[in-house]
């Protein structure tokens, strides 16, 4: 399964990245927590403490509202093109859920917040999942499917 070209968007990507960082800073400012999608979702399904689910659900609702806000302002829904088959989506989603739980975080928790705190754990985790993802994409696109 080979990919198709996507447009190089340095300015939008930088601006979006700044907003992602801003959200992490705001969560630290308001609630004193790191912004990790893994932790938010995991706590939402498991309920770590009484009354702990409400803000997590509110945050998930806000996340989903983000692209709808972009749609409202720009008149266009940001592209979400899924170039993989449904069994791969299913397997990939389950595998991601297992991995981020044992790895204690994902691209937001380790990749953004942990690295910004200069956490050695997060640096090791980030390098590991980036390399593993790169190898996986290479094997799927150029060894198995190419």
């Amino acid at each position, binding site marked *: 399964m080979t*990919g198709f070209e996507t447009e190089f968007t*340095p300015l939008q*990507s*930088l*601006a*979006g*990245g*700044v*907003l992602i*960082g801003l*959200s*992490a800073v*705001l969560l630290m*400012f*308001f*609630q*004193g927590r790191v*912004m*990790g999608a*893994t932790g938010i*979702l995991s706590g939402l*399904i498991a309920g770590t403490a009484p009354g702990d689910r409400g*803000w997590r659900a509110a*945050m998930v*609702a*806000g996340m989903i*509202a983000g*692209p709808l806000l972009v749609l409202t302002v720009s008149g266009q829904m940001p592209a979400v093109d*899924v170039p*993989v088959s449904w069994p791969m989506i299913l*397997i*990939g*989603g*389950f*595998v*991601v*859920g*297992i*991995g*981020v*739980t*044992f*790895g*204690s975080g*994902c*691209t*937001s928790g380790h*990749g*953004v917040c942990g690295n*910004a705190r200069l956490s050695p*754990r997060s640096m*090791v985790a980030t390098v*590991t*999942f*980036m390399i*593993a993802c*790169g190898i*996986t994409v290479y094997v*799927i696109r*150029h060894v198995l499917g190419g």
Partner: protein
Amino acid sequence: MRLLSAFIVGMVFGTGIAISGMINPAKVLNFFDIAGTWDPSLIFVMGGALMTTFIGYRLVLRRDAPVIEETFQLPLARDIDARLIGGSAVFGLGWGIAGFCPGAAVPALGSGKWEVALFVAALLAGLWVARAIRDRQTGKGALA
């Protein structure tokens, strides 16, 4: 106050994911496809996010406490062990298979595409199963 601030934080995050292109698996997978249809955009996402968080955390953490809670709750774990590296490698494998990471998939639900809902359902199942395994191994444990 807590619900409202959490909603706003989520919306800023989701807007960033949407504008940056992280919301689009085709773009994310192309970032990793250096040997094929490479799209380096995500370097700029990571750069912008890291720069902002690095500076912003230093300003915020000068305060004695956050606005709503009484203390800052920073992750305390320090060990670089097989669980961290193995888990992260498995995450990278899944990310490369499907093209979504958790923080990109949740905002992508806003697109209304069934593929995203399928990914998130599988992700939640994986989180639930992994938590059950981990809690049985270690007794009850908290996630950072």
